């Protein structure tokens, strides 16, 4: 078992004929992901990487019955691509694209209220992987292994670092979800924690947060109300100064809000162990 994604999920790639889209489609196929097609307006009818290419997502869904999509289109077109996927009936939309204007994402979030079955992951995220079964996005499968730890994170490389340490310690993962570094996102920590809570295959939980916003605090409140998962949290950005964006558009402390300290304290109050370095996470999970 897993959350959101497994070997039966039928995936299309929006922007499959692009350099990034093509490269990562091959990687996704290597894991075993059921990639059933892709879209690229104007290239409908072609075959790329062994799968059919369609002009629109609606055409792709009609022909293939796809229920998930990975979006690799450039930032100016990404918001529209997300809405196109939702309108076509896709229920798992994973947007890898970085640099989407925040006002576009605010409109997207409002649009998605009309499609309650559509779940968006990202944007500006590495996507998700259910090790040994399927992935949508760019998380390197080499560092993952199947198991029972649920991992949810706002960071890309830090996720890889932790997944790699878990795999080395023979602690496999049920599903790894990178929710992304933007201030206005699809699924939040809380959303993903709730999914892990319901997944019988997941027994442990690692949350990797960072400065900015209050999604970590909300997830901590949720966990404080009772959880069957053994959880460890890590927050990056303790040394980040106020008012500066640290790489991610969403990684910014505003006044006294969004600090690493506030997030760490929220997790401790919820009875979640907080790791000081990523190296400590494995030991704390045992």
């Amino acid at each position: 078992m897993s959350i959101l994604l497994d070997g039966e999920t039928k995936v299309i790639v929006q922007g499959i004929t692009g350099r990034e889209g093509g490269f990562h489609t091959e990687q996704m196929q290597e894991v075993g992901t059921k990639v059933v097609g892709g879209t690229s307006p104007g290239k409908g009818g072609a075959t790329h990487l062994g799968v059919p290419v369609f002009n629109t997502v609606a055409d792709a869904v009609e022909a293939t019955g796809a229920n998930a999509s990975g979006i690799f289109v450039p930032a100016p077109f990404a918001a529209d691509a997300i809405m196109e996927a939702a309108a076509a009936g896709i229920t798992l939309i994973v947007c890898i694209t970085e640099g989407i204007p925040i006002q576009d994402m605010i409109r997207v979030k409002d649009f998605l209220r009309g499609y309650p079955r559509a779940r968006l992951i990202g944007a500006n995220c590495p996507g998700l992987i259910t090790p040994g079964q399927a992935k949508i996005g760019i998380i390197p499968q080499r560092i993952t292994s199947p198991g029972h730890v649920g991992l949810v994170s706002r960071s890309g490389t830090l996720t890889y670092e932790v997944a790699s340490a878990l795999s080395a310690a023979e602690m496999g993962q049920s599903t790894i979800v990178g929710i992304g570094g933007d201030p206005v996102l699809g699924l939040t920590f809380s959303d993903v924690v709730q999914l892990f809570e319901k997944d019988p295959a997941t027994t442990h939980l690692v949350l990797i947060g960072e400065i900015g916003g209050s999604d970590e605090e909300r997830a901590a409140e949720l966990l404080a109300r009772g959880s069957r998962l053994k959880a460890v949290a890590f927050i990056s950005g303790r040394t980040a100064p106020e008012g500066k964006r640290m790489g991610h558009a969403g990684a910014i402390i505003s006044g006294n809000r969004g600090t690493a300290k506030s997030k760490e304290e929220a997790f401790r109050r919820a009875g979640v162990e907080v790791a000081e370095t990523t190296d400590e996470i494995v030991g704390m999970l045992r």
Partner: protein
Amino acid sequence: MKLLEYQAKEVLASLGIAIPPGAVARSPDEAAGAFRRLGPVAVKAQVPVGGRGKAGGIKLARSEEEARRAAEQIIGMHIKDFKVPLVYCESALDIAREIYVGFTVDRDARANVLLLSARGGMDIEQVAEESPEAIARLHPNPWRGPLDFELTQLVYDADLGDIARPLIALIKKLYRAIPDCDALTAEINPLVVTKGGEVVAGDAKLEVDDNAMWRRKDLEQKYGAVLEADPYEVEAKKRALTYVSLDGDIGIIGNGAGLCMGTLDLVQRAGGSPANFCDIGGGAKAEVVENALAVILMNPKVKGVLINVFGGITRGDEVAKGVITARDNLNMKVPLVVRLSGTHEEEGREILKEHGIEPGVSGWEAAKKIVELTGAGVSR
């Protein structure tokens, strides 16, 4: 991109909002000239941070000589991290009352929120903390913007019904900064109601989304380069790097924002003090590493550099070769520790060792090593 007050006011004026007469001055002579044209003025430091008044960055000038002297004192002074590049000389207003109006991104609601309060001229964060009921809020639909009846409710909620009409007209104009400029935050504090009943922007803040610059080229061209911020940040921007200057003496390069922030935390935990944040993104290409090192080494305070690269698909041996080339091209003299992980990581570490660079296996070990080599702090 945070605009300076005069720039924000130019944008507001272009949206049809009234602003007081004013002029930018880059020298005491120009400030004197502004006085001759405008009469008594407030001479205001132009920096993209709050707290100018307290820092002595705003002075009233009742004569040409006072305007000159004020500009002399203010231009070049430091307010927080910024050196004041110029002043804005602005006519005083005939104030009847002061209001707060603005909008920002409400991250929790994943929406914009319009804020209105009768308590203008004060720090709004403080108002929010002490008497949250004094701030009226509206989350407008992002596709159609605020409707008249919603704004009417907002104005009455803020106890400002007596000036509903001019206020609603003003908020509609201000809201245009979202669809027209990709503004993330705008603030008019105070919004001055003059004794003549006009509403005029007394101060203005505006932040435009960096992610939207591709469709706001006009704003970037007009306002992107004026600010003389940190010289390393300026250089980093030219080289398209994601870079933030910090106070310490250990240069940091990481791939990925979270990993890079985490590396800063590790260095501090090891007793060191990071000189910067620098995220070189995914592939860790040789050219990007060299650009990052070049910017970091511009800073004479830097006593050593730590590079932390977690390569998923990136090959460790290629990263190692790139780092060595960059070091040699830049004739780097200070200690360098490289932590790399990824495919071919063992070969990568061997290559580093052969070229006299300390390889680190984990981020934490690498952080301790660079702190030790730069003699900064206590090792644990």
